[in-house]
């Protein structure tokens, strides 16, 4: 399977990300699916044989049973429709299961995607729902918030490697710039280093601009067997590597607070399967739920050595003009983080990049892309590698 295409993406859709007042999750998902169908006129919706969707929390809308709900509202009845849940990596897992369903030989065409409706709830409520992805009896019970968990990693990283609050803020500045260029991003607004650094503290050393956004949104991809892709489109994108791993639910039990083992393991699996190295990656979407998470991602994915993530952002290597642009979409930081939708939304951006449709954010001649999707505080991670056909 080394370097061979696992599946091909023949179409993709993304709703507007933001505070989508008056819309239910199912209605937002319908917008993403409509785009995927419009992009691919050769695809008959009836060709889709199964739906796998990531969705983290039923608390937001008091709505569970997401698979069938979304199939129902997107004209996909009566295909099998299943929800996957791995916290913020829920649609990364949906993508992976979609790949397996094609590789099994059972299906020729499937849809994968994700959705989350979050902005109808107050910030304290959302904070509490997100914390459910962490350990209840030993973390949440002792007053540790979700930003607090990443703040514990940030403090450890700063202490061990000398990473600075300025370097964290530089991730926010970069991703806000990219989000400014993305018409679907939640925050299409530049931010200065001074503003990011002087924003209010959420969980020291993390400030408001170190945190991703509470956002509504949905995303989807249509997958098929590589040999069938050209029937549907002239510009398919192949998935050549997939990896997923788990780690302890409580971060306190881990050997290291400066790296996510699950992400390293998932990356190793994906790189080996794809037969590529970190040097081959032209563009990446990584899970910047907090700025420190992007710096740790650089290191876990092998874009730099452990401890050098701060310098990588400081040297501008991951900007649109740099040697390895990261989070060209604006990332979770500026595009927004509707948690269940994030994994396949990352894949949507890579799909645009590898098919030359990323407009002002286009990375020239991008051939190989990567997505890195983390669940909670790193108890799940999924990594995928994509190639232009």
């Amino acid at each position, binding site marked *: 399977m080394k370097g061979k295409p696992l599946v091909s993406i023949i179409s993709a859709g993304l709703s507007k990300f933001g505070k989508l007042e008056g819309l239910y999750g199912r209605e937002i998902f319908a917008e993403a699916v409509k785009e995927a169908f419009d992009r691919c006129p050769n695809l008959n919706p009836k060709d889709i044989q199964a739906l796998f969707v990531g969705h983290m929390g039923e608390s937001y809308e008091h709505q569970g049973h997401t698979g069938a709900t979304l199939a129902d509202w997107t004209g996909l009845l009566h295909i099998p429709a299943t929800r996957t849940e791995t916290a913020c990596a829920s649609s990364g897992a949906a993508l992976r299961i979609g790949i397996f369903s094609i590789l099994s030989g059972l299906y020729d065409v499937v849809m994968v995607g994700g959705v989350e409706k979050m902005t109808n709830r107050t*910030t*304290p409520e959302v*904070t*509490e729902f997100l*914390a459910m992805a962490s350990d*209840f*009896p*030993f*973390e*949440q*019970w*002792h*007053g*540790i*918030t979700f*930003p*607090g968990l990443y*703040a*514990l*990693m*940030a*403090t*450890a990283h700063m*202490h061990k490697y000398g990473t600075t609050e300025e370097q964290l803020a530089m991730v926010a500045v970069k991703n806000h710039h990219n989000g400014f260029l993305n018409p679907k991003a939640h925050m299409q607004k530049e931010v200065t280093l001074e503003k990011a650094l002087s924003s*209010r*503290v*959420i*969980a*020291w*050393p*993390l400030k408001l601009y170190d945190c991703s956004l509470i956002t509504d949104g949905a995303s989807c991809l249509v997958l098929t067997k590589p040999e069938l892709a050209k029937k549907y489109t002239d510009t398919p994108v192949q998935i050549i590597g997939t990896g997923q791993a788990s780690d302890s639910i*409580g*971060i*306190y*039990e881990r050997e290291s*607070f400066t790296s996510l083992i699950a992400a390293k393991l998932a990356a190793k699996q994906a790189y080996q399967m794809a037969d590529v190295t970190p040097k081959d990656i032209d563009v990446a979407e990584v899970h910047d739920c907090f700025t420190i998470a992007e710096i740790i991602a650089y290191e876990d994915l092998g874009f730099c050595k452990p401890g050098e993530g701060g310098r990588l952002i400081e040297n501008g290597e991951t900007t649109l003009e740099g040697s390895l642009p990261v989070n060209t979409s604006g990332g979770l930081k500026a595009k927004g983080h509707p948690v269940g939708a994030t994994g396949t939304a990352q894949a949507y951006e890579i799909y645009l990049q590898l098919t030359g449709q990323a407009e002002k954010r286009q990375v020239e001649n991008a051939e190989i892309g990567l997505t890195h999707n983390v669940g909670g505080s790193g108890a799940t991670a999924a990594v995928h590698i994509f190639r232009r056909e």
Partner: protein
Amino acid sequence: MSEEKPFTIEQFYKYISQGKLMGGKCKKCGTIYLPPRPVCTKCHSKDFEWIEIQPKGKLLTYTIIHVAPVQFQSMAPYAVGIIQLENGLKIPGIIKNVEHDKIKIGMELKVVFEKTPVNVSQWPQWPRYYFKPA
């Protein structure tokens, strides 16, 4: 000899209410769990014994929570850290009785206990432990 108490999270917190930090030690492979676990994740044995862990350790990392969950809002901003105890065991908790700018990685902290009786009818509302300068 009295029978061993069950190796559960509930029992761990019952010991907290008695002012004891108790872990479960696998009699087969010697791995110590804090909190205890019902089955050894290394050798899959269910044969455990309780051991008392010295309630003191070194601070490994910390944060100051400014935006707090509803039930902690009156305390905010408050410090939370992870400490390393004997045998390499680690637990997280709130750090009290120290000015936030005096908190340093590596500082010695002791574990102090909220000695309120456990009311199992309010499961899972446990007494808490905290960290204070040694």
